[in-house]
């Protein structure tokens, strides 16, 4: 596919530049009309409807170019008139629809025919399909009012059809094409303006539930297209809420929500009383009522809509009307005497306990939707958040893990608005013992941003987290991080706990705790982070605490902040918080060194090399020191390294020596070319935040590397045959570059590509040897391009947490069978990890295996961060001794995925592997060694 694509691109390019090349394209053109001709012949050959259908099916599998669509359509229509079999006509009708969607083809020419055949058609199915085709045509021509009007007319005419399928399609057509504004319809002369809404509304009471659904959907479609729905629709829709069919109710709920958003402030009467309420409140009550519908499809829909609500004063409706008892206490349910029955209208205002209902629903789909709804509402209203807390906390004990997880995430999202009471905290912390890792980690994340009200709460949280730590030691990092935030959020609450936590005694020195104990480190992390904003705290530390502080500050600097300790200087003033905001010096330094580098054009080769080397070294060091600038520094350093390699390769003294003598030296140059290629792929795919500006430069660098490779090959190989292919390929690359980056070409003044394109016509006709020569001189002359720095750039990185690679006990398994290896890794700044991150296993015999983790194995705990928890299946034939295999993570890339797709490929069926194919991989984590031992099977 890709090759074909390039060829096409190439042809078009040459057509523009070189007139004499047209002959070649004409040759290709000759084959094009044959498509419709072949179809014609096939259809004529067909002896039976089944045959014809088969031909059509075959035909449908291949894409059709825009220019030949019309011919094909004519032939199809011709056969349509002749055809007696409805199934063939149906297929033709559907093909017409597909073809009219072809990009670059204007379907107005076939509309008359389509409408014409529609009028003579008897089969309901074919009619429906034809209407579908018309819909495709109509949507293709959104500007043409006259056509739209005509289509609407046709639709109205067929609305009285007895088949539900036809009516459905008509309504769909009306929904999609029905004119939006009255004024526009008057412009289209000759056709009476129709009130599309009225027409569609009439079908709300159709006898067929499918048609009713279609009518509501059409109405929603009108709304989506910007038509303001009439308020009268509200009452009609309300009636549909009690429809017998779930799909009708489901759609009606949506419609009610839409209308309630359009006319929130209108007043509607409450039936059976003289009161009136706002429409939006009425709608809310109705939607709440639907949360207890008989069908779970409707319940999910209703629960989803609840979350979209903006007004939050409804929160009080959570609680049952006071007249009923809660049933919590025995004897509480004696009927209260003589209540004013008119005041409380339980069913009509249905909202009472809608959430309670949703959260207790039988189907977890509904529960999840309800939790999400709670989340949205709570985010917009702190008072509601406070109230729904109890319900959310209760959801932590749901029987389905997904629901528990969802509610924990929800809680995290709203945690800014709330402070947990102790009993709530208690319930929350109880979940720490959950056996699911996801749940625990979600909970850690939640605790990171929770507000706790009392010091007992903090203590409780710490105790529970430590319990969690002993039970699941793998949670170590997550717990430390959690405590870090817990400490820095609640310094004043931690303060009174310090003596107890550090077990200091006013008179006696206590034993020094073990510095390697994760639990002790956890306590220290909490205390040190609290101490950051609480200057009185260090006074409570004993001597060894200070020592431990110094140690931890070094070893776990991301968890332990810098403290102002009495009698000590700050450990590193550079990182002190006062300086971080004005990070200009380092930023400036970065800028300056980069500026300096761009002047290297004027230096002699030796000087340029040295300058590059120094700058690269500087940048690397800067990246290490300043984590915020690491991405930029690394990125620039990589680019400079490429340039350095290029210069070095070109500086080889022996370029002018005859080819045979050159063999030895070329090693260096070809290695450089290869390395540059690798580095450019890294630059393109390993950094997040790379913009098009940078991609151009990177591709340009890669083009240079390819040119270098070509030159080297030309020098080292004898015979022209392979060179021909390479040359052609290279020129295609250039052509692709030009096509893809056409907009950026002006920025590439004086560059390699700029010069290359000037000489393109000459290159096209030249012999390979000549091409190589030109390339060589151009490479030397081309200017060094300035790499603009992106705003935000981060290098993708991955750390494998598990397997730890320290075990001496080999993993034993019977050879030939599989063993599952748990892999746990954190990924930073990886875009779309589901498709790009792979696991590689390298066996000692050099055999490598690539494993594609399932999309569900990736979790997204925070922005820019991902976590991969998966199982890798290993297998091998027997070994005599335990050996280590290497496990690492790869970043798969596919540079052609960035190319915009060709128009005709969008319409036709695309082979799915095109998108997922992998061009190459970049290892981006440190390999971990796992000791395994496949034993021969015993018999």
């Amino acid at each position: 596919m890709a090759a074909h694509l390039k060829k096409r691109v190439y042809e078009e390019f040459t057509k523009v530049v070189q007139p004499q090349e047209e002959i070649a394209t004409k040759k290709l053109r000759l084959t094009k009309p044959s498509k419709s001709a072949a179809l014609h012949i096939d259809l004529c050959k067909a002896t039976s409807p089944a045959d014809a259908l088969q031909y059509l099916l075959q035909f449908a599998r291949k894409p059709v170019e825009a220019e030949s669509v019309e011919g094909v359509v004519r032939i199809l229509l011709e056969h349509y008139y002749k055809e007696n079999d409805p199934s063939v006509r149906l297929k033709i009708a559907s093909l017409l629809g597909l073809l009219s969607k072809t990009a670059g083809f204007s379907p107005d020419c076939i509309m008359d025919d389509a409408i014409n055949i529609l009028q003579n058609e008897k089969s309901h199915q074919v009619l429906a399909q034809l209407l579908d085709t018309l819909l495709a045509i109509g949507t293709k021509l959104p500007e043409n009012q006259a056509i739209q009007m005509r289509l609407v007319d046709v639709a109205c005419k067929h609305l009285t059809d007895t088949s539900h399928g036809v009516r459905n399609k008509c309504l769909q057509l009306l929904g999609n094409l029905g004119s939006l504004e009255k004024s526009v319809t008057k412009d289209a002369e000759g056709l009476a303006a129709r009130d599309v809404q009225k027409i569609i509304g009439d079908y709300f009471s159709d006898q067929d539930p499918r048609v009713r659904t279609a009518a509501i959907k059409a109405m929603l479609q009108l709304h989506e297209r910007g038509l303001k729905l009439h308020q009268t629709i509200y009452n009609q829709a309300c009636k549909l809420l009690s429809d017998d069919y779930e799909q009708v109710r489901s759609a009606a709920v949506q419609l009610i929500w839409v209308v309630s958003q359009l006319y929130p402030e209108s007043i509607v009467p409450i039936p059976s009383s003289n009161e009136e309420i706002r429409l939006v409140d009425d709608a809310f009550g109705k939607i709440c009522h639907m949360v207890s519908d008989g069908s779970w499809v409707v319940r999910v829909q209703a629960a989803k809509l609840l979350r979209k609500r903006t007004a939050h004063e409804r929160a009080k409706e959570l609680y049952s009307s006071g007249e009923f008892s809660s049933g919590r206490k025995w004897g509480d349910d004696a009927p209260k005497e003589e209540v004013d029955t008119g005041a409380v209208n339980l069913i009509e205002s249905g909202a009472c306990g809608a959430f309670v209902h949703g959260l207790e629903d039988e189907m977890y789909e509904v529960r999840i939707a309800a939790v999400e709804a709670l989340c949205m509402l709570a985010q917009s209203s702190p008072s509601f958040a406070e109230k729904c807390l109890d319900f959310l906390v209760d959801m932590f004990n749901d029987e389905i893990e997904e629901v528990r997880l969802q509610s924990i995430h929800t809680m995290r999202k709203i945690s800014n608005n709330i402070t947990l009471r102790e009993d709530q905290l208690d319930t929350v912390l109880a979940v720490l013992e959950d056996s699911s890792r996801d749940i625990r980690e979600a909970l850690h994340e939640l605790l990171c941003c929770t507000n706790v009200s009392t010091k007992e709460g903090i203590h409780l949280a710490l105790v529970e987290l430590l319990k969690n730590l002993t039970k699941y030691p793998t949670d170590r990092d997550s717990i430390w991080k959690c405590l870090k935030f817990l400490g820095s959020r609640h310094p004043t609450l931690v303060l009174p706990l310090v003596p107890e936590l550090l077990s200091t005694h006013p008179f006696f020195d206590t034993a020094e705790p073990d510095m390697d104990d994760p639990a002790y480190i956890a306590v220290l992390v909490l205390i040190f982070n609290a101490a950051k904003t609480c200057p009185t705290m260090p006074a409570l530390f004993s001597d060894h605490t200070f020592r431990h502080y110094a140690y931890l500050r070094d070893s776990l600097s991301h968890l332990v902040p810098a403290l102002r300790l009495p009698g000590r200087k700050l450990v590193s003033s550079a990182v002190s918080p006062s300086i971080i905001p004005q990070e200009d010096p380092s930023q400036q330094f970065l800028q300056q060194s980069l500026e300096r580098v761009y002047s290297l054009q004027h230096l002699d080769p030796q000087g340029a090399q040295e300058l590059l080397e120094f700058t690269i070294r500087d940048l690397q060091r800067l990246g290490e020191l300043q984590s915020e600038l690491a991405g930029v520094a690394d990125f620039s350093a990589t680019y400079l390294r490429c340039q350095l390699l290029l210069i070095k390769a070109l500086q080889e003294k022996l370029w002018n020596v005859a080819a045979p003598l050159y063999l030895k030296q070329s090693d260096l140059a070809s290695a450089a070319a290869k390395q540059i290629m690798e580095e450019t792929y890294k630059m393109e795919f390993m950094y997040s935040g790379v913009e098009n500006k940078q991609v151009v430069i990177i591709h340009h660098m890669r083009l240079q590397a390819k040119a270098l490779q070509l030159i080297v090959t030309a020098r080292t190989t004898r015979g022209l045959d392979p060179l021909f292919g390479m040359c052609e390929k290279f020129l295609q690359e250039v052509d692709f570059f030009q096509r893809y980056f056409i907009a950026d070409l002006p920025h590439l003044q004086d560059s390699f590509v700029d010069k290359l394109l000037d000489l393109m016509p000459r290159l096209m006709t030249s012999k390979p040897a000549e091409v190589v020569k030109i390339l060589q001189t151009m490479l030397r002359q081309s200017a060094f391009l300035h790499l603009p720095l992106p705003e935000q750039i981060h290098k993708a990185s991955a750390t494998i947490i598990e397997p730890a690679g320290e075990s001496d006990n080999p993993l034993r398994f019977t050879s030939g069978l599989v063993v599952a290896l748990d892999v746990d890794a954190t990924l930073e700044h990886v875009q779309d990890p589901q498709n790009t991150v792979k696991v590689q296993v390298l066996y000692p015999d050099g055999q490598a295996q690539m494993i594609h983790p399932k999309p569900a194995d990736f979790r997204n705990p925070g922005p820019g961060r991902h976590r991969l928890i998966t199982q890798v299946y290993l297998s091998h034939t027997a070994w005599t001794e335990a050996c280590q295999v290497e496990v690492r993570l790869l970043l798969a890339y596919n540079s052609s995925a960035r190319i915009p797709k060709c128009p005709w490929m969008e319409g036709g069926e695309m082979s799915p592997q095109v998108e997922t194919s992998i061009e190459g991989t970049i290892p981006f984590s440190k390999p971990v060694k796992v000791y395994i031992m496949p034993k021969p099977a015993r018999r």
Partner: protein
Amino acid sequence: MPEIRVTPLGAGQDVGRSCILVSIAGKNVMLDCGMHMGFNDDRRFPDFSYITQNGRLTDFLDCVIISHFHLDHCGALPYFSEMVGYDGPIYMTHPTQAICPILLEDYRKIAVDKKGEANFFTSQMIKDCMKKVVAVHLHQTVQVDDELEIKAYYAGHVLGAAMFQIKVGSESVVYTGDYNMTPDRHLGAAWIDKCRPNLLITESTYATTIRDSKRCRERDFLKKVHETVERGGKVLIPVFALGRAQELCILLETFWERMNLKVPIYFSTGLTEKANHYYKLFIPWTNQKIRKTFVQRNMFEFKHIKAFDRAFADNPGPMVVFATPGMLHAGQSLQIFRKWAGNEKNMVIMPGYCVQGTVGHKILSGQRKLEMEGRQVLEVKMQVEYMSFSAHADAKGIMQLVGQAEPESVLLVHGEAKKMEFLKQKIEQELRVSCYMPANGETVTLPTSPSIPVGISLGLLKREMAQGLLPEAKKPRLLHGTLIMKDSNFRLVSSEQALKELGLAEHQLRFTCRVHLHDTRKEQETALRVYSHLKSVLKDHCVQHLPDGSVTVESVLLQAAAPSEDPGTKVLLVSWTYQDEELGSFLTSLLKKGLPQAPS
């Protein structure tokens, strides 16, 4: 006038011994056949002599339907079928059929072996009784006989609980039995389609309650149990062997597993083991979670819950014991209660409803000194907690079900009169359906208007369709045709076809009318004027002027004649057929207004 009659023999304004007689379109059905926990004399069983004094019940009842296996719904069944005598079919679901005999046997044992009652049904009777049972599947329509059909719907409540729709022709009654609209740890929620029955007979145990979040209750329950156990106290949870017990077991089991607790949990009676076996088997009747996970692990295979031995009650240290029966009126739960009641560290949790007169009801009402058998007084020092775990629909749930089924009227049973009154009022007000709440022995009669299906010939239908605009779904329309009643079926056909079929000749019926017009001109001219006038008024009718001087409008004939006595007036004869009555009367009234002045 056809009618549906309902008479509760038990559970009318009361909880216990559910037994409701329904006669619908000449069929008599008995719904449930339960016993009453509060009585130990004859009152514990329904009074079957109401049905017939002498003679076998089989002649009077077409079938018996048992909604679920709780004793207050099936406890009197062997007595009824074997001792009173009934040989007709008894319908229940498969799980009910499996578990019911276990409970009956248990009940028999307590009554006969413990209390030494004579004249009670025997094990053999239970077996014989169960042989008469026909098991049904959910949503399966079972034809009891040619006319009577029944259909079961899922009801939650306990394993195998079902609501039944009883249908004869177009009349139907739905009996809910006990049901639960909120799902719990092991069962789903009741569900019914919009079957629009004439009558919905619903339980109303919690007629005045709207319960709060179930999760809240679960959490409280777990917390209370946990705290008591941590203090070293013993927890007694009196339950019915089946139903809530399983839910609470699952709850405690998962909690114990999560919290890694080691305190023993016991479940009394060997009966539960048998029953649990069935719970494991009837997975399709449980909730979404259990249905989806039973492949990995069947939730009813408990790891932490062990069988209870009587000797364990005196063991030191904390423990949790589930014991039957649930209302502390007899059996093991009462024994354990007496042993533990004196210690304030202990706790009893009543997870369900308690009938008046039971020990459970007394302690929940706050009584601290109980009079036991043999005149001893038992002082209750242990904590008494009530946790509403009983799986009945609350007021909102009942209303919800009524809304779902859309019945014409509702009848409340299985509840206390005072609370029923309240709910009745609510239902009538908000759902606008009539609501009844008969006491035991009181009969409710509901007139019904059964719909009679009439067949219509396609030709006629198409013809009528072609005449009018689109038929509107909800609007009645006038249609001309002939109704033929033959062999107890009804057909609507066109009149021509009816004549043909019956071999009758057609009679023409014409109406004629004279209209006097003031016109001095000749008859022909008058006719011409009439013609042009009608032509201008009736634009879409076919108006013709015939050569003989008469005018026709469709089939209406108009003739002008001059009466001899007065030349100034002309008499216009208007004649039309019966079918054109509408047009004809319109024409006469039009002509009576006179002709417009001629332009000339």
